[in-house]
């Protein structure tokens, strides 16, 4: 096992987590493992263990976790939060850590950049699709008499998204492309 110098720890990580969600208190975790024992993602991915993310945050040793991409396998079912006796909200902390990874230039899975791009273009995470019917027809929103959707002034909407930092996420290059 590799030995990590304790002094190399990131002492600011808890503050960075709290910068996004003010009332988070990962330091209250006493590793009872109720979160991990009830976690549906842990059943599929043994490396996904909410209590480990909590401990890593307390110690400020999160670099490996952020680099590994494991955080993206969270279901965000929020079961951990309801199970936690100390109300530490692991799912929010996982979400916050993923945010920190992105702010450090670590790319999210393609599905996420795809959704941000779609929001930027049309205001929604996907394009309206033609849906099949029980009579083997294909119908659109319009065919079904549903009102049209979309952003009226897309340029202004995109300017607002730029201010809020959407383009920063889109600008991150996935690792393979860097090589």
């Amino acid at each position, binding site marked *: 096992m590799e030995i990590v110098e304790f002094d190399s720890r990131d002492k600011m990580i808890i503050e960075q987590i709290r910068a996004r*969600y*003010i*009332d988070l208190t990962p330091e209250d975790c006493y590793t009872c493992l109720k979160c991990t024992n009830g976690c*549906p*993602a842990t059943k*599929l991915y043994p490396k996904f263990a909410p209590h480990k993310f909590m401990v890593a945050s307390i110690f400020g040793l999160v670099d490996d976790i952020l680099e590994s991409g494991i*955080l*993206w*396998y*969270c*279901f*965000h*079912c*929020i*079961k951990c*939060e*309801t199970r936690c006796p100390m*109300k530490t*909200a692991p799912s929010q902390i*996982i*979400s*916050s850590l*993923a*945010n920190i990874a*992105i702010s450090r230039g670590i790319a*999210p*899975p393609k*599905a*996420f950049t795809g*959704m*941000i791009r779609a*929001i930027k273009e049309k*205001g*929604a*995470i*996907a394009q*309206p*699709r033609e*849906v*099949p019917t*029980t*009579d083997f027809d294909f119908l659109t*929103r319009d065919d*079904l008499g*549903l*009102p049209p*959707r979309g952003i*009226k*002034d897309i340029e*202004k*909407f995109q*300017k*607002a*998204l730029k*201010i*809020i*930092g*959407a383009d*920063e*996420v889109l600008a991150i290059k996935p690792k393979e492309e860097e090589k």
Partner: protein
Amino acid sequence: MKYGFFTGCTTQTDTYENEISARAILKHFGIDFQDIDDQSCCGTPIKSTKYEMWAFLSARVHALAIAQGFDAIATVCNGCDLALSELMHELEHHSDLRKKINEALAEEGLHFDFPLPIRNILTILYEDVGLEKIKKNVKKKLTGFKTACHYGCHIIRPTSFQRPDDAENPTKMQEILEVLGVESPSYPELLDCCAATIIGVDAENALTVSGEKIHIIKQRGYNSIANVCPFCHKQLGAGQDVAGRVIGKDVKLPAMFLSQYIGLAIGMDEEKLGLHLNLTGWEELVHK
């Protein structure tokens, strides 16, 4: 109370039957609602990538609804309901974020001061309409239905602020279905997640989780599923064929939205409830 109707991405681009049936049922029960004009994504899907963008998108929906004179926002998706409700909770002590959001909103001439109440369709049906009124409107009891409810995670959690139903023991969907004549007992997997949130990262495992849930529901003797969330419905309804292929089991089972069950019981036309867009094989159960 005048509701601003918010559809959210999945419903407006894919699960049209959710929108069609919700509109039909709200209209039938005289709920005062109108579409929020110029609406965009609620922010939920991208919350883990950029927190500020989630907050901005959610605030944008509130700001539009306020500017258009609505008293509350009606949601038909668990994810949207969570994002729009959580924003109020988050921004209470977050003045920097509020400032940044308003700076971005100003580009479109919008402003966010206070959040509006968020009411999910389940809350509207249970509280605004009420079981008594639904019961009085039932024309044809849905006998022979043994339906497994799937609430979906975000309508019952977290517990740190008000959600439409209880986190440990939700009952509202089942109470409504029972008024319609549907038998809807609880089951051990009731609160299990549909895994829709990881479909973009690991589709095979996402469909394994949903497929196994449908499979166990079938094994427990249910002949149908009821959903309120379009994202869950994509996993437990529309996604059945693929999920069945992934896990190598037969997971075909009629899955409909709660509003479609209500519509059928009060005698509404199947097409007016969007059932012709539902490919889960509901016909035999409904027509018998």
